[in-house]
């Protein structure tokens, strides 16, 4: 049911964990639905995402999309990271079963939430 790429990211998740002093953190989803994604980002002075980490409670697709999404926004500017769509994450994973597309939406939302959190802190 899952592509080899999904299974690879599930088995060998990239960027799993938390950043000690993150610039921004986004947590989306809820335990009731069976998916929670937490993405933390470290933004440097040039506005580039120097590091990002995830923690995820969820199915194989949720873990794999978190892993892939963090890979895709690392080293990008905030605007570039925000432009990463759930569809791009799905494509990078060589597809997801239809009932798992919501996991990729969750990843996009977690990135957006982390960036919003960073921007809100900057605005202070």
């Amino acid at each position, binding site marked *: 049911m899952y592509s080899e790429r999904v299974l690879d990211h599930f088995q060998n*998740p990239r960027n799993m964990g938390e950043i000690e002093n993150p610039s921004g953190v986004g947590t989306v989803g809820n*335990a009731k639905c069976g998916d929670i994604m937490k993405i933390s980002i470290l933004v440097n002075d040039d506005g580039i995402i120097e590091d990002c980490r995830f923690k995820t409670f*969820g*199915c194989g697709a949720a873990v794999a999309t978190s892993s892939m999404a963090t890979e895709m926004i690392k080293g990008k500017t905030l605007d570039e990271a925000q432009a990463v769509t759930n569809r791009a994450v799905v494509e990078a994973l060589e597809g997801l079963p239809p009932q798992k597309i919501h996991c990729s939406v969750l990843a996009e939302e977690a990135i957006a939430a982390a960036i919003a959190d960073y921007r809100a802190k900057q605005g202070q």
Partner: protein
Amino acid sequence: MSDKMQVYMDNAATTKLCDEAWVAMQPYFREQFYNPSSLYMGAQRVHKAVEDARRTVAEALHADPKEIIFTGGGSEGDNAVLRGIVQGYAGKGKHIITTAAEHHAVLHTLELMQTRGEVELTILPVDEFGMVTAAQIRAALRPDTILVSVIFANNEVGSINPIAEIGALCRAANVVFHTDAVQALGHIPVDVQALHIDLLTLTAHKFHGPKGVGALYARRGIRLMPQISGGGQERGRRAGTENVPGIVGMAVALLKAVAHMPETTARIQALRDRLLCEIPARIPEVKLNGHPTARLPNNVNFSIRYIEGESILLMLDLNGIAASSGSACTSGSLDPSHVLLAMGLPHEIAHGSLRLTLSEYTTDAEIDYVLDILPQIVTRLRAMSPLYNVP
């Protein structure tokens, strides 16, 4: 991958065909392919094989062979009962009592019939173990109640309902009593006389018989209207040429299961108890789902906190272990198992359930392997979980 141990612990989903059934079925695919309804001698031999199988199934249930209807499996049996009783007892009413922890073959069928106005449904809540009491049934009975349908042993958590008490109550109240005994047959003793069962559904592939064949016990005198019409097979109660190899295989598998039940049960239960005992000892914050003692000898079901069921299954699969979960992600819906929710488990705990179901082929080495691998998987997934605070 190939050097990895391959462990099958999803026997509540289906079982491996036993050697005896496999061998017994063979002739009926080719040499003895005749239609049992035909006149010539070859066909009559096939007819006899079907009737011998009927007697074997009847004896296993303590029923009369005339009370056995061969079907295409558990879902067909449940559908035949629910629809057939509604038609047969239309003069009495259309009220049916069932439980919130039934198999979908019963629950979804009844809910569909309710939306069509064909039945009035009372779905009894279950306790923390997924069980109902006879007192609950008694309180729900109405003058227009035509059927009580209660699962014998739950397919997810293995809890065994008080079937004898419910049967006695229904018999005294003159209400037809059906039980879906798909998970119970061949695993625990089932005596339709002693338990006062009027209708019982079973399927062969849960006790090492073939898939696509089952049987329905319908007590003499019960007005069960046939749902598949056509020829006169099964005494006019289920049309269609008999699945002869399937029927023969089912009877052989059932005979074997029943004949060896005490020793097989003792062995499986000892293996099962190692899991029941060792999993909580090796993994903190797990919860046993289902009744601790009134449960099927081969069922283990735990909720493992902070992690999600499909992830556990995938990790187990990558390690060669086949298991099952009540997680939403394994069902294609967003809600976890209706049984676990009916038992009062919060969604997040229900999402993290793991079911391991054993069989007579399960070995000590396989239990060792699962007890070795599972804690590693849980540690790994918990490290990934935002809900878990690493101690």
